[in-house]
């Protein structure tokens, strides 16, 4: 009897839930119906929520076909360990980088945290400024992209990026970087890293939107961007960012 009631209740949840899920399913409308001028994207990162699981890094590599070798990253996660003697140790948590991860005794550590990094999709992007052939450009919806059919592989943009967010794709020999998963967001989906984050440390959305998780994040937190003094105007903002993070 108990079991029957349980199954009934379960169905009562699952069936309407399923129907609701189908109705509310993110739009898979084709990108051709997409109007870039109606959006302006940004990302919020809650440093205190990141647990350093690295799923975002894996999801990004899988989704975007980024080489699995530990020299090419569209997004990565840094672990900061600030010891009691004020020594700061930063490590990339990627398991493929051997010998870089170190452990410390709990008593030695003052504070420790993880910081996800990616292209900041700057509003005033130095990479776009320096590209000699205009292969790197800013879209109407504020995303900085690289046209791999036009890039000549001079790597000036890699030099100009203050965040180390760019690399030379070893296959195409053109500059490469995070696109906010442009192929997904123009279909109404979330970037892969945001989708898989188990703690919702990453929040993606329209920076101009009036009611969205990103707007709420921006309303509820004191925010900071990386290397603000360089006036690159990043559209990736961080809450709970430590002064040691560069």
């Amino acid at each position: 009897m108990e079991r029957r009631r349980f199954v009934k209740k379960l169905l009562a949840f699952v069936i309407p839930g399923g129907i609701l899920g189908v109705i509310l399913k993110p739009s898979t409308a084709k990108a051709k119906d997409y109007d870039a001028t109606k959006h302006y994207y940004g990302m919020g990162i809650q440093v205190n929520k990141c647990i350093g699981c690295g799923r975002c890094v894996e999801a990004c590599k899988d989704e975007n076909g980024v080489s699995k070798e530990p020299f090419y990253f569209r997004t990565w996660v840094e672990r900061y360990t600030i010891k009691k003697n004020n020594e700061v140790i930063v490590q990339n948590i990627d398991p493929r980088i051997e010998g870089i991860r170190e452990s410390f005794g709990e008593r030695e550590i003052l504070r420790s945290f993880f910081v996800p990094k990616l292209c900041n999709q700057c509003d005033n992007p130095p990479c776009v400024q320096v590209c000699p052939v205009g292969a790197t450009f800013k879209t109407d919806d504020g995303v900085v992209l690289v046209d791999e059919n036009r890039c000549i592989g001079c790597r000036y943009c890699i030099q100009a990026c203050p965040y180390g967010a760019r690399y030379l794709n070893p296959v195409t020999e053109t500059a490469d970087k995070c696109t906010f998963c442009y192929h997904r967001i123009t279909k109404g989906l979330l970037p892969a890293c945001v989708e898989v984050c188990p703690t919702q440390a990453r929040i993606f959305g329209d920076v101009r939107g009036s009611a969205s998780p990103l707007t709420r994040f921006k309303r509820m937190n004191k925010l900071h961007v990386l290397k603000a003094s360089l006036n690159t105007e990043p559209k990736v903002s961080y809450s709970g960012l430590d002064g040691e993070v560069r």
Partner: protein
Amino acid sequence: MNPISEKLVDLLKQVTGYIYPNEIEVHWGVLVVVYPYLTGLVAGAVILASLVKVFNIKEVQAVYRLSLLTALAFLLIAPLPLLLHLGHPERSYEIFLNPNFASAMAMFGFVYAWYLMVVLLLEIWFTYRKDIIVWSQQENPPMKWIHRIVSLFSTDVSDKSVEFDKKVVKGITIIGIPSAFLLHGYVGFIFGSIKANPWWNSVLMPIVFLFSAIVSGIALVIILYMVIIPFRGEKIDMKCLDKMASYLFYAVIVDFSLELLDFIHRLYQSEESIKILSEMVMNKLFISLVIIQVLLGMLIPLAIIVGVKLFRFDEELRKLLYFVSVILIQLGIFATRWNVVIGGQMFSKSFRGLTAYKTELTGIEGLLMTLVLLVLPLVVLAVLLKIFPAWETPKRNPVGEAAA
């Protein structure tokens, strides 16, 4: 694993501190060191030639043509290292067809074309016009044809036309000096305008580049003069050599002062990046910067030239000392380019770590290719000197309109 990654795995072991993961690959290698080195030689040689013309300095007249041809030879090869280092050299024409006017690098095509077409080719053509016409009249094929073609089938050797040539040369020279400043100043700007990189980001960068260019250009012309003249069985004009050494001395002093100013300014300002930059200089760049660039490339040559100025050494010793100085200066300027280009990529933009760079012997970014690119301009110069002899003047009077 691709071959680049295999190399990077080795480099990963040499990383100290923390670098952003994408920073392990040094993107601008030795080829990008060669490029500013070559353009610096071009700018320096042209500025030397221009000094001769604009200020009408008689002593240095003997190297005027040599300087121009040297500049042309090096300018013709200068884009080659850039082209070779591109991921997609076959798309390089896009810089000319679809330039991004906000990009300092996109201006390359225009500055280069201006310099090659307007300044150097015109100046050389007008300087040689009368002589090549006369040579073409006196020679046998195939040199006769070559000279007729390079004279663009011009035949007028009248006094009036020669007078016109001289005027044009003077005019181009006057444009030539700011153009030389533009060419190399612009190369400095490519680096100096990168705000992300504190090693490069300096308003002094174009000026430092320019003066180091003048230093290297004069030193190169001295080397070539001291090698070619005895090879031709002629005597080195000591007045010319002393004068060039004097110019070199002043240029090195200005260059040294500017670099010292830059150094003191950085230390005094002591910005966020100062710790990692100091660490880099003391570890990664100690030999190339402190020993080669500053000690061997500047201080010792300066001391030698001061010695020559103070004590009246005899000709042979002077020649030897000058030769040693200019060789050291060339070495020093190459190290300067190395320290700017490679140095700027040895530290992480997180200012928390240093990476490593290893040159290969073979391959496009290898040492052999570098040597080829450094020797190639000399081969071009040898050909140019064959077509446009720098010291011979036509033996007989011209036949043609003037003679008639």
